[in-house]
């Protein structure tokens, strides 16, 4: 059974139909990439899956449970956490407070400590800058914090919305390396990216989104060699 299943999802922004019936599945242990140009509806899908935006039609199933339109704050409890577009870290709070907020729903003190240790291990910069105000971090460091914060909830499936946006090439490579590590440690990943080349290089499978519809899907390596993909998204 798929860990996350989206069935015929339709989403409106006002009167405009932004998502026109999208279906996809994420299997346990996979990295799935959702690629597409600006305005294709990638972020809208992510927000709807996480309960921040209402679905008009269709279903979102997490571990077989229908979670369509349940309040956003309840979804993290079911094992799905999102790193939102633009990172959205709490700029005025310290790095430590950001991580603590990532663990907001956790009640188990001991295991929480172990998670904090493992996040510090994965992102040594966060341990170093633990007392620093998050808004003063560089863009790349903020992305690390956003990812570390999401991992604090110990998710079974991690959603990442444009994790490479606005980062230097060095940090882009770092971010994708870490995503792969997170996945290898057992967390399923759904990745939304404009950087199709990078996304396809780490994904198992991918879906291509165009103006609210999935136009192509399949094995990531095959898509990378697909003529139309190369032209439209890889700039070749």
């Amino acid at each position, binding site marked *: 059974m798929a860990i996350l299943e989206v069935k015929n999802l339709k989403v409106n922004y006002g009167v405009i139909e932004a998502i026109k019936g999208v279906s996809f599945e994420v299997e346990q242990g996979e990295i799935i990439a959702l690629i597409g140009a600006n305005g294709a509806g990638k972020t809208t899908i992510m927000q709807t899956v*996480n309960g921040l935006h209402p679905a008009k039609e269709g279903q979102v199933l997490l571990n077989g449970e229908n979670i369509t339109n349940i*309040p956003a704050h309840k979804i993290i409890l079911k094992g799905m*956490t999102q790193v939102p577009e633009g990172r959205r870290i709490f*700029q005025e709070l310290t790095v430590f407070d950001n991580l603590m*907020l*990532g663990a907001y729903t956790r009640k188990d003190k001991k295991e929480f400590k172990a998670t904090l240790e493992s996040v510090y291990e994965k992102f040594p910069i966060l341990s170093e800058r633990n007392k620093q105000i998050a808004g003063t971090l560089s863009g790349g460091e903020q992305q690390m914090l956003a990812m570390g914060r999401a991992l604090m909830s110990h998710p079974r499936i991690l959603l990442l919305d444009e994790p490479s946006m606005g980062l230097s090439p060095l940090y882009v490579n770092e971010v994708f390396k870490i995503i792969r590590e997170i996945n290898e440690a057992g967390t399923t990943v759904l990745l939304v990216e404009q950087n199709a080349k990078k996304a396809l290089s780490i994904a198992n499978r991918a879906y291509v989104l165009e103006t609210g519809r999935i136009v192509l899907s399949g094995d990531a390596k095959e898509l990378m060699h697909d003529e139309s993909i190369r032209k439209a998204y890889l700039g070749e």
Partner: protein
Amino acid sequence: MEFLSSIINGLSLGAMYAMIALGYTMVYGIAKMLNFAHGDVITLGAYTVVIVSSTVLVPAINLPVWAGFIAAVLVCAAVGVLVEFVAYKPLRRASSLAVLITAIGVSYFLQNFFQIVFGTSTKNFPRVPLFNETWMIGSLPLNSGSFFTLIFSVLIMIALTFFVKKTQTGRAMLAVSEDRSAAQLMGVNVNRTISVTFAIGSALAAVAGFCYGYTYTGIVPTTGAMPGIKAFVAAVLGGIGSIPGAFVGGLALGIVEYLSQIYISTQWSNVIVFGILIVVLLVKPTGLLGKKRSEKV
């Protein structure tokens, strides 16, 4: 000597404003609204003490004044949450003007409710042992009540700072204040966090009502209205949304008001206080400790 004594009295008045301003500023920071009914919660707190700890309103109940104090804190917290639930929560997605007008409506509702239930005549606040003495510090006379008001406000400020910075609920409040949807993604229940904020703000208003009661002794249905508005000025002066700002703004405003009463004229003191609001809005709208925050879309 007279100047020093005026400063102390001004600080005490300011401490009361600070407690009220903390409620204004927390609610503004987290729920993004100006709760103009906040001042009337002070009145409710004062009346609760009169009911519980004197024979003035309900002769059958006459408990020690501290029982009245605790009752006031609980009643105000509960009413604060109730008002938010009934009047403001349905307007979460409405324009801020609609919420502002509703808050003014709630304020008038509460004032008229007090008038009908408690009558318009002045009700005497019960005496608080130890709070109505004059202590001599050298040759400087110090009213013990003023001293305790200051102590209350400092304790509240310390407790509140600790709560907001060191507890998960406090962090959640700061998170909601900065980015509501990111907070939701962390699992923070925004509605519950707003309720907690109203409970705390209203409990602080109850403490301020208690301080007002033993300082000025007479309670009428509009008792809290003027201190409420002045505390709003204090919150803006300190930087609305900022907790230390509310404290500093409250103390500063208290000193300015008291000094202008003594050295200029009691009739001009309100003009000066509200003049400060206008000047702050013109010169530094973010206040003394407020931050400039770009609005997120």
